[in-house]
Every structure is written in C-alpha cells, then in structure tokens.
C-alpha cells in the first residue's frame, strides 16, 4: 500500500520536512534548542481514546455544531415568518447533515474503532442525491428571499436584503453584529503548529512503525488522511487500514499527545488574542440568546 499521493499537499510537505528535521536533530544528539524552546510546555497527558466529546481551549470561543444547528433553525423560522408576511408559503429546506456530531470528532482523523471496522474512514452520511430541491431557486422566491429587484410584493414591503437579510438582522443585533471571527483561524493555526511539534512528530513515528508492522506504509497519520486511492470508496482495504490506524493511535497515545500539545498551543494563542476572543464569545452568546428566543416563541 503506498502512502504518498502524487499531488501531496504542499503544506504537509512543509510540516513533514520540519518534523523530520527535528527528529533527525534529536536522534543525532543536537536538538534544535531554539525550536524546542518555542514549543509550549504540556502537563500530564490524560489518555484520550475518542475525540467525539473533545473540547480544546479555543472551543469556548467558537460556536459548536449544535449551536450552528440552533442558529440555522432559528434563521429558517425567521425567513419563513417573513415570507408568510409577504403571502408566500416558503418551505425552507435544511440539509441532511455532515455526519459529524461534534467539531473535533475527526480533527485528528478517525479514532473510533467500531466506525473504522464498519465504515472505514467514511462517516455514515445521508445520501446527497436525496437532498430536496430548494425553492430559493425559483426566481420569484429568490427575489423576495434576497431582496432583489423588488421593494414591494403584493403591496407589502419587502425588507432590505429580503427575508434572508431580515433573518440575519434578527440573529445579530447590537454588539453581536459584524464581530470578526478570530477563533476559527486561530484553531487552524494551532492544528498546523501541533502537527509540526516535535512531540507530536515523535508519536507519529511510533504510529508509523506500528502501522508498518500491520502491513501499511505511512510516515504519519496525515498521509493516510490524504490517500485519495485508499479513500475513494469503501473497501476491505480501506476498512483494514482504518482499523489498524485507530489501533495504532490508541496503542501509541497519538491522539492524547496531539490533543494535549494542540491545547497548549491554543492556550498560548488565547493569551495573545484574549480581547478579540472575548468579544467573539460575547457576540456568540448574544446570537444564541436571540436564536433561543426565536425557537421558544415558535414552540
């Protein structure tokens, strides 16, 4: 089984080169002291076998997937109410879902051995072909939803930005409007930094040796996440690889170490960006309160 795809992502190439240098330097007795000094310290690492309910420090500043679901539901209610006011029975169609239950569930790839055994690397998902067509594509609906080309409809005023614009305003008022999303970019940064950290590269190396013993040749868990051929469709080979992947992650504490190291990077990033993050957290709380009021009123 090959591990390197032809168009291997350049970002990971950079990460791997960096990690490889650190490992070589360490093994030669000449550690990159400057680099090591920049790596945040990590306390005792608790065993972590599942990432389903993992919360990292930056998560307190971000909306969870269930928060997004509540906001989307509230937005659909507001849009529907607005359209009803215009005399239109609009059926807002929700998407069937990603298969992900939480934001961090697949942050470090697959961790659930049961899922690996049953589905390989794939999350069970509703068939996309069954996604119902959205009536927003009807030209009249479109004009009213987005406020295009009509300021009035059957003598009733169309709100600025249409009913979608009105729903936006209904869920983002006052200080919650226009607050910059700083948490998600920081969480991406921490993910990249942690994947290049020397301690994470060390557990990647032990994971790789474990995978090799099981008959799979991947330098790090990142490559298996990028193997297009392997992941193209569910197959016995994919399921066998996923089972070995989860077993090796568990045996060598890959996810425990990776999450602990990433948490350390996130804590440092929070200190550097606390005021902007606090603002975002307040804005998120305001939006969720507004959404809750809409949902309660709709019961």
């Amino acid at each position, binding site marked *: 089984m090959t591990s390197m795809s032809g168009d291997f992502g350049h*970002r990971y190439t950079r990460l791997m080169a960096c990690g490889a240098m650190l490992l070589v330097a360490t093994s030669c007795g000449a550690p990159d002291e400057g680099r090591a000094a920049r790596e945040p310290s990590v306390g005792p690492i608790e065993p972590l076998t599942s990432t389903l309910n993992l919360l990292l420090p930056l998560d307190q500043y971000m909306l969870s997937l269930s928060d997004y*679901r509540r906001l989307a539901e509230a937005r*659909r209610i507001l849009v529907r109410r607005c359209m009803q006011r215009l005399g239109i029975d609009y059926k807002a169609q929700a998407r069937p879902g990603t298969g992900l239950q939480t934001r961090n569930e697949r942050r470090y790839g697959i961790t659930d051995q049961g899922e690996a055994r049953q589905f390989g690397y794939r999350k069970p998902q509703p068939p996309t072909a069954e996604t119902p067509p959205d009536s927003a594509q*009807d030209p009249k609906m479109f004009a009213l939803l987005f406020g*295009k080309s009509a300021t009035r409809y059957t003598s009733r005023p169309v709100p600025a930005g249409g009913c979608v614009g009105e729903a*936006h305003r209904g869920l983002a008022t006052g200080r919650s409007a226009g607050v910059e999303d700083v948490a998600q*970019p920081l969480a991406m940064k921490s993910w990249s930094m942690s994947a290049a950290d020397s301690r994470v590269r060390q557990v990647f190396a032990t994971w790789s040796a474990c995978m090799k013993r099981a008959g799979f040749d991947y330098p790090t868990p990142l490559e298996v*996440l990028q193997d297009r051929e392997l992941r193209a469709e569910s197959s016995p080979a994919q399921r066998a690889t996923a089972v070995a992947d989860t077993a090796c992650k568990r045996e060598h504490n890959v996810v425990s170490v990776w999450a602990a190291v990433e948490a350390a990077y996130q804590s440092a990033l929070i200190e550097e960006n606390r005021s902007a993050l606090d603002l975002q957290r307040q804005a998120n709380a305001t939006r969720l309160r507004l959404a809750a009021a809409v949902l309660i009123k709709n019961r």
Partner: protein
Amino acid sequence: MKKAWRLVAGAAAGVGLMAGVASPASAAHKDGVCDPGDLCLFATDGFGGAWVDYYFGDNDHRNDRFIGGAGRSGYNQVVADNAQAAWNFDPNSWAVIATLLACEGSTQILEESENVTRLDSGIWNSNWSNCWAG
C-alpha cells in the same frame, strides 16, 4: 448594494449568477454557475476571481477546478489549496470547509452570508473538502 448583488445584476438571468447561463429553476452541482443553494469557492480573495460551485458536499477538492469565470484569475486551476474566498449562498444551511479529505482535519464553518468571506490562510492553503449541514 453589495458587490455580490452587482454581480447578480450583471447576470443575464438574475438567479444564475455571474455566468448567467443557468436555468433559473435549477442549481446544479459544479456547473460553473453560483446559484442559491451553492457553496461557491473563489480563486482570489473576492468575487473577482474564477469560481467553482458546490450544491452538494465534496470529499476531495483535488480533482476539482475553478470552472466558472473564464478569463478570470485562477480559471481552470485546481481548487484544493487555492480557494481564497467562499460564499455560502444557501439561506438555510451552513457549510464546512476542511483541510483534509471528507471534512476531516481543521475546519472553517461558514454560515449563509450576503457577501464573500475571505478564507483564513490556513484553509486556502489547504482546502481539500467541504460538506453541508442544516
């Protein structure tokens, strides 16, 4: 008027954004037209670049190209690692853009918006998949 709507206004059909060739009653997946219901990814950090439109989630951007906006910056380039901006044009759902295949790795979630969202450099350097949720 926001930039997005200027582009709408410039399209022949009004609904079929930018290329103006779509049937107003259908949003097709990866047809080169950014319609309501699509997640549109742009090759530059605004509406000025070429785009690709996803009506469904897509597990691998490495085999996709920016197929909308012939002649614009980034036209026909591979989408993976090159999308600098996104527009969630579905009023009912939120979209997840991920750094790895099948919405794994680190993610940026985009709610429906009136305008294009510049993607964080961490994701436009490595956008490999997207998925939808409501």
